[in-house]
C-alpha cells in the first residue's frame, strides 16, 4: 500500500494532540497531548524511512523517544512539585509569577 495513508494518519493524530493541548486545563492531559504529537511525528519518521529505504529515519525516531522519556520525567516531577504547594494540577492555578 502507498505510504500516503500513514502520513494522513499522523496529520490527524497531530491535530488531535494540538486540540487537546489547547482545550484541556489539566497539566497531566496537556502532557499526554504533547506525547501524542511526538508520537505522530515518530510515525512520520518511520514512514519516510520505509519510503526511501533509509534507516536514518528510524534512528531519529529512536532519539525522539529517548528525549521524550527525559522530558516526561522532568515535566511530571514539576507537576508533582506544583501539586504539592498549590494542591491542584490545573494550569490555571499556577499563576504565582503573574502577581
Amino acid at each position, binding site marked *: 500500500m502507498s505510504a500516503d495513508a500513514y502520513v494522513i494518519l499522523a*496529520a490527524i*493524530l497531530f491535530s488531535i494532540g494540538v486540540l487537546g493541548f489547547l482545550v484541556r486545563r489539566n497539566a*497531566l492531559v496537556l502532557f499526554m497531548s504533547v*506525547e*501524542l504529537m511526538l508520537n505522530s511525528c515518530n510515525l512520520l519518521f518511520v514512514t519516510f524511512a*520505509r519510503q526511501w529505504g533509509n534507516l536514518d529515519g528510524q534512528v531519529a525516531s529512536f532519539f525522539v523517544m529517548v528525549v521524550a522519556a527525559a522530558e516526561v520525567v522532568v515535566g511530571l516531577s514539576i*507537576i508533582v512539585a506544583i501539586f504539592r504547594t498549590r494542591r491542584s494540577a490545573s494550569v490555571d492555578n499556577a499563576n504565582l509569577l503573574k502577581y
Partner: protein
Amino acid sequence: MTPLLVPLVSGAAVAFWICAPLMVIGALGMVLSRKAVYSALFLALVMVCLAVQYAAQDAPFLFVVQIIVYTGAIMMLFLFVVMLVGVDADESMVEVIKGQRVASLLAAGGLVILLVAALSRTFVSAPVGFDAANAASEGHIQGLAALIFGRYVMAFEATAALLITAAVGAMVLANGERITPRQDQTTRVKARLAGYAATGAHPGPRPSSGVFARHNSIATPAVLPDGTAAPGSISDVLVQRAPTRDASALGAATAAVHREIAAATEGEGER
C-alpha cells in the same frame, strides 16, 4: 515489498486499517474524557496501536522500543503521577478565556484540513523498503546499530547525559522540603511523658483490637470487662472511614450466658 495476503491487500494494509481507526478513537477519547486516568489509558491504546504500525512498516526495533519505553515506562509514570495527584480531581469546565474552546476547535480543524490537503499526495512511488539497506549491513538491527554507534554516536552520548540530568532533576524537584523538625524516638517518648504529666494520658501503647471466636478484624473493638469498648482499640482512620462493630453486640452472647448461669445458680440455692 511485503507479501500479499489476497490480491492487492498486504498484511501491512490490514494492520493499518484495523489500527488507524482505533488510534483516532483513542486519541479523541484522550482529549474528551474528563478523568485523567481514562486519558492515560486511551493514550496507552494509541501507543500500542502505533507499535503495531511500526511493526507493519518493517521497524521491529522501534516496535519493541515503543512498547517498552512508551507503554511500559512513560505511561506507567503517567499513571503513578495520576495516583499521586488525585484520581478523582475533575477539572473545571469553566472557560477562563471566553470563546477559547471554539477557537481551539477551529484551529485544530483548520490544521487537520491544511495538513491533509498538503500531504495527501506526498508520494508518487511505492515505498522502497529496507531490502537494500538490510542487505548492505547484514540485517536490520545491525544496520541501526551501525548508524547509532557510527554516524550518530555523538548524539547518542548526548542523550546519555540528557537522561542522567533528567534523573537528577526529577530527584531534586520531587524531593519535598521538610517544614517541621524530624520526629525521632527520643522526641516522641518525651512528648508522650509530657502528656502523661499534664493530662494523665496513658503513655504506653494503645490496646489492640478485639480477638473473638467469630471476629478478629482490626475493625472489631476490644471489650472491657463491663461490656463497653476499650477506647483507642480501633484506629481513628477506620472509625472515620466505615462503621465498626458494636461492642455491646459483641458482649451480648457472654452476657446471656452469664444471666443463664446466674438464673441456674439461684434456682439451686432455693432447692
